[in-house]
């Protein structure tokens, strides 16, 4: 976003356009623009760097200051991957497994999507690539019972992490959200509550509905962290600023490709800079 006009109202409109086109949302964009306008009004002379820096700082204030690390404990940590259909849960689980293996952690996977065609084959192939065990059952079997068995197995084998894949689901499906609650309940019965990392996987191309998704999943089962996928495209993922600001849930990683290496820690500064480009 580089102001091109000497007319500052026109420049502010261009900035508003860039913010909204980043999926920041109307209300947050107007809020941020108002803050910028009042800061610029205090300056005798405005140059582009001023605007860029001020804009970046205003946006960063809406992001959280909290930890963006995955939970790490002395006993088994279970990471469960949840979210809407097709957002990249299974792929992100595989990427996370690689990261953990590269930090010398012992990892096991659980195939708790027992519904979608070839979901179990898909995660099994990832398990082969990663050379890790995958606990699975039959299609149509109860996802929560697979999770139950997987946690037992992970504890018995002294695993550091158990990564649980779940079926995609819409947050407005009462039945599917109840199923998810049941899976989470089973996990909470078998490990300390603090050892469960609930990662919400958000597709980076999603618009305002991303906020409603995060809110619904958060209210239903609670979310510890978010991974925003597909940011190797042209979408800016601005909706996460609203999510962090209003729901207080940190983005921990971003997905930037289809290979197992394509997962990087979320860096607020890089993210805002990329948004303002």
């Amino acid at each position, binding site marked *: 976003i580089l102001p091109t006009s000497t007319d500052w109202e026109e420049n502010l409109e261009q900035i508003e*356009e860039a913010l*909204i*086109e*980043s*999926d920041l*949302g*109307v209300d947050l964009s107007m809020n941020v623009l108002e803050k910028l306008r009042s800061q610029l009004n205090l300056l005798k002379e405005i140059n582009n760097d001023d605007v860029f820096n001020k804009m970046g700082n205003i946006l960063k204030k809406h992001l959280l200051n909290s930890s963006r690390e995955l939970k790490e404990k002395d006993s088994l940590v279970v990471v469960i991957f949840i979210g*809407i*259909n*097709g*957002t*990249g849960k299974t792929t992100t689980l595989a990427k996370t497994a690689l990261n953990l293996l590269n930090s010398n952690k012992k990892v096991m996977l659980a195939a708790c999507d027992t*519904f*979608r*065609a*070839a979901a179990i*084959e*898909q995660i099994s*192939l*990832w398990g082969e690539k990663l050379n890790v065990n995958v606990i699975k059952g039959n299609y149509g079997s109860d996802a929560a019972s697979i999770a139950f068995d997987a946690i037992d197995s992970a504890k018995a084998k002294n695993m550091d992490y158990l990564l649980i894949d779940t079926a995609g689901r*819409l*947050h*407005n*499906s009462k039945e599917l959200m109840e199923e998810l609650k049941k899976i989470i309940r089973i996990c909470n019965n078998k490990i300390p509550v603090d050892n469960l990392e609930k990662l919400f996987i958000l*597709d980076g*191309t*999603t*618009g*305002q*509905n*991303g906020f*409603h*998704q995060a809110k619904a999943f958060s209210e239903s089962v609670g979310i510890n962290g978010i991974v925003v996928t*597909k940011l*190797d*495209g*042209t*979408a*800016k993922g601005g*909706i996460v600023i609203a999510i962090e600001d209003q729901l207080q849930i940190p983005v921990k990683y971003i997905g930037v490709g*289809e290979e197992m290496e394509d997962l990087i820690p979320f860096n607020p500064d890089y993210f805002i800079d990329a948004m303002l480009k």
Partner: protein
Amino acid sequence: SISERFQGIFKDIRGMGKITDKNIQEPLREVRKALLEADVNYKVVKKFMASVKEKSLGEKVLTSITPGQKIVKIIYDEMVSLMDQEKGEIDIKSGFSSLMLVGLQGSGKTTTAGKLSSYFKKNDLSTMLVAADTKRLAARQQLKTIADQVGSDFFTIEDEVNPVLIINAAKETAQKKGIRRLIVDTAGRLHVENELMEELASIQKNLIPDEVLFVADATTGQDAVNICKEFNSFLTLSGIILTKMDGDARGGAAMSIAYTTGKTIKFVGIGEKLGDFEPFYPDRMASRILG
């Protein structure tokens, strides 16, 4: 709802009898905000609102309705006509036709291939589902499972990485067997991956499909314009399918895509099962987007 909100704004210009530059400002601002919140692209909203303003100014308002209601009606009608391109029926009459599904990763192509196959089967047309996604893990198995559920033919070449070769062989086999509909599922890809977009273009050039359907997720935000612009430039799209409409996304991407490509949205996906598939209704979509 928008209509209810407008009752309030126009209480004070009721009976004025005409839409003017002055009294149109507030309602246009309100609708603009609603469209942006529904994920309609910023530039699309700007151009659309400009043309609505032009159409509305000077319009007479009957004393039986408020100017606000009149403006909303104009906007609604414009949205419906924008998304109601020339009749976009999928051919269920001709002897043989082929269709290819394209789109971003995870948009719902493979699932939609199954739904199309099921739709054709209901219309007594034999179908063959072609697994031409040679990249995604277990992609062939996913489509094979779906083909078995539908009861349709299935074709792939197990260790072939070139989708064009798979599709050529599939078409030959289908025509020999007298199969009437060939549905090609392709790998999801980004609109900015040039090599992969060229691959799609060469698939189209080879197969010369009767339908090139862009499968888009109804939750897509502002980026919908960038995405469909590229797909529409590398390929000659014949239509759009909007998936995950059973969610609660307002679906402004539908308006962005219709505006940008001028192509018809032919079907919507409303669930994960084979039968969760219905024709696209522009009037229902317009109401949903306006909120």
